C-alpha cells in the first residue's frame, strides 16, 4: 500500500472557533492507481490533498506512506519526501517568472541530494511532456497549456512515486486541458500513481477510482468501470505548430 490514511482529523483554529475540515477520513491508495478526489468547494478536498501531499499535518490520525508512519517526521524530513517521492501540479502552474523552461524544471533538483546530470534529467522530463524543443523559452513566453506541461515536467524530474494534481485543467481551455489529461494518463500507464483533485466529473472520469468527499467526510469511493472511463487525446495547441 502506497498511501494509508487512518482516522485522519484536521481542525482549523481561527481564534477560538474550531472548524472541522476533515472528520475521521480513512483512505488507502495502492501503487499505480489513478484516483480522483471530487467534492464541492469547501468540502475539504484540497485539505485532504495537502495532507496526503505532506504540505500540511493532520490534527490527529495515522498516515502511512509507503509503509512508513510519518507521524513524528520533522519539517526537513517532510520536505525531503515532497522533493523526491511526490510531484505537485497546481491549477495556476506556479512557474518562476523571468526564468527559462529548463531552469524551472531543474528547480526541484536544487533541493535534491543527487546532483548529477541535472540538465539531462530535466530534458528527459520535458521530452516526456512533449516540450523537448522549448528549453530556453522564458516561462512567460509560452501558452497556458505549455505552462502546465512544464509544471508536470517539474513534478516528474525527481522521479516521484506519486503525482498530485490540484485542478490541473482548471485554468486551461479544453484543447490544452485534454493534452494535459492525456499526459497524466500516459504517466499512469507507465506505473505512476496519480491523485487528481477536481470538481469536474468529466475530468474525474479519467481516473479508475473516484473518491467523493463532502463536509470533511468521504461519502463515496467507487471504481470507474472501464466502459465509462474518458480517455483524452493529445491535441497540439496552435503554438506548438
Amino acid at each position, binding site marked *: 500500500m502506497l498511501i494509508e490514511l487512518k482516522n485522519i482529523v484536521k481542525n482549523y483554529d481561527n481564534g477560538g472557533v474550531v472548524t472541522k475540515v476533515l472528520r475521521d477520513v480513512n483512505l488507502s491508495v495502492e501503487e499505480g492507481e489513478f484516483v480522483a478526489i471530487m467534492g464541492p468547494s469547501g468540502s475539504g478536498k484540497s485539505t485532504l490533498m*495537502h495532507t496526503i*501531499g505532506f*504540505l*500540511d499535518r493532520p490534527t490527529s490520525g495515522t498516515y502511512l506512506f509507503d509503509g512508513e508512519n510519518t507521524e513524528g517526521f520533522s*519539517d*526537513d524530513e517532510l*520536505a*525531503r519526501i*515532497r*522533493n*523526491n517521492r511526490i510531484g*505537485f501540479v*497546481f491549477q495556476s502552474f*506556479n512557474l*518562476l517568472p*523571468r526564468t527559462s523552461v529548463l*531552469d524551472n524544471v531543474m*528547480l*526541484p533538483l*536544487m*533541493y*535534491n541530494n543527487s*546532483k548529477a546530470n541535472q540538465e539531462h534529467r530535466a530534458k528527459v522530463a520535458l521530452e516526456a511532456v512533449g516540450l523537448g524543443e522549448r528549453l530556453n523559452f522564458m516561462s512567460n513566453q509560452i501558452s497556458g497549456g505549455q505552462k502546465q506541461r512544464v509544471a508536470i515536467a*517539474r513534478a516528474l524530474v*525527481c522521479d516521484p512515486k506519486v503525482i498530485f494534481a490540484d485542478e490541473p485543467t482548471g485554468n486551461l481551455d479544453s484543447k490544452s486541458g485534454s493534452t494535459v489529461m492525456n499526459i497524466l494518463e500516459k504517466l499512469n500507464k507507465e506505473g505512476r500513481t496519480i491523485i487528481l483533485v477536481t470538481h469536474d466529473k468529466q475530468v474525474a472520469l479519467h481516473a479508475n477510482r473516484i473518491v467523493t468527499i463532502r463536509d470533511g467526510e468521504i461519502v463515496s469511493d467507487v471504481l470507474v468501470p472501464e466502459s465509462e472511463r474518458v480517455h483524452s487525446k493529445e491535441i497540439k495547441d496552435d503554438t506548438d505548430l
Partner: protein
Amino acid sequence: MSTLLKEIKTTIKDLLSRKGRSFLTILGIIIGVAGVIIIISLGAGAQSLVLGQITKLGSNLVAVLPGKSNENGPPTAVFGVQIKTLNLSDIDMMNDKGKVPNATEVAPFVRGNVTIVSGHENVDTSFTATYGNYPRIQNVEMSKGVFFSDEEGRSGSNVIVLGYDVASSLFPNGNEIGGVVKIIVPNTNPSSTESSNSIPFRVIGVQKKMGTVAFQNQDDQVFIPFSIGQRQILGIDYVQFARIKVNNNLNVKSTMEDIKRVLRYQHHITNPDNDDFSVRDLADAIKLLTSITDTLRVFLGLMAGISLVVGGIGIMNIMLVTVSERTREIGLRKAIGATRKNIRNQFLLESIVLTFAGGVLGIILGVLISYIIALGARFAGYDWAFIISPFAVILAVTVSIITGIVFGLYPALKAAKLDPIVALRYE
C-alpha cells in the same frame, strides 16, 4: 562548493533581471561605503600633507616652551595662559657651548598682532620677533632684500622683513626695500595719556610666497628684531618660546636632556616633576598631530558608518517587500522540497550579494571621488598625496557584507517560516 557558486550565479541573474530596483536597494550602501572610503582617503592625504610640511621645517629642531606640560598633551600656552618663566638669560645659557654643546643656533621668540601702516595703506597682521639667526633655523626664502643680521637682531635695529601678502598690500607698486612702515603699538600703560604710539621700521627684505604651512599663512606675517618686539611692542620681559637647532638628528634627544639640565639649574629646580618649562622635538609634535588627526578620522569614519547602517535598514525594507512579493514562489519552493534552511539561505544570499555589490560600487565611487579631490588639491598648489589604504577597502567590504547578513537575516527568517499552503494560496 560548486552548488554555492551556482546559487550565487542564479541570484545574480535574478537580481540583474530587476536592475533598477536592485540598484535603488543598494544606493544607501554605495553612498555609505563611498563616504567611508573618501573620508579615510582624505584624512590620510591631509595628514601626510601636514606632516610633510612640518618635516620640512626640519627634524633637528627642538622647541622650549614655558610652563610644564604633559608629554603628549598640548602646551599650556594653547589654553591662552601666559607663562613668564622663560627669559633671555635662559636663552643665553642654552647658547653656552660648554653647557649645550650640540646646539648650533638658539633663537627666542615673541609673537603678537599689530597694525602696520605705510602711507595710506594699512594692514592687520601678526609679527614674529626673533634673532637674526632665524633663517639658519627655519627655511626662509627671500624674494627681495635680506633677512636682518645677527647684529641687527640682537641690537634691536628698526628693520623689518615683510611676508609676501603684507608686502603687496602695503606697497602695491612694489618698491618695498628701503621704504618705511609704522607699527601701531596699542598703549598698555594706563597712566599714559596717549592712546597709542607708532614705531617706524625700515623694510630690508620681502619673503617669497610660501602659502600655508602647518595651518598658518606664512605670507601674512612680518619679522622684526627680538628686543623691539618684546620690549617696545608687547612691553614684556619674558620669552614666549625658543627654538634650538641641533647639529645632527642623532643628537636631538641628548640636546633635549642638556637643555633640561641647564634650565633646571637656572630655575633652581631639583625635582623634574616641578619643571616650569617643557622641551619638545618635532617627533613629539608629529606624534601629537597624528593623534589629533587620527581621532578626527575615526570620528568621521564612524559618521560615515552610520550611513551604512541606514543603508542596511533600506536593504531590510526592500528585502521584506521582496519576501512578501515572492510569497507564492516561496510556497512553491517549499512544496517541491525546499527546507527552511534552503529558503533562509536563498534570501540571505540575495541580500549579501546585494550589499557586496553595493560595497564594490561604493569603493569604486569613493576611490574616484577621492582621486578627483586629490587632483583638485594638487591643482590648487598643495603637495597632496592620493592615498587609498587597503585597510579602508577591506573594512568597507567586510562591513557591507556584515550589513547584508544582519539586515537580511530578519526577512530571510520570515521567508523561511512561511507555511507552504498559506504561501501557495497567497494572492
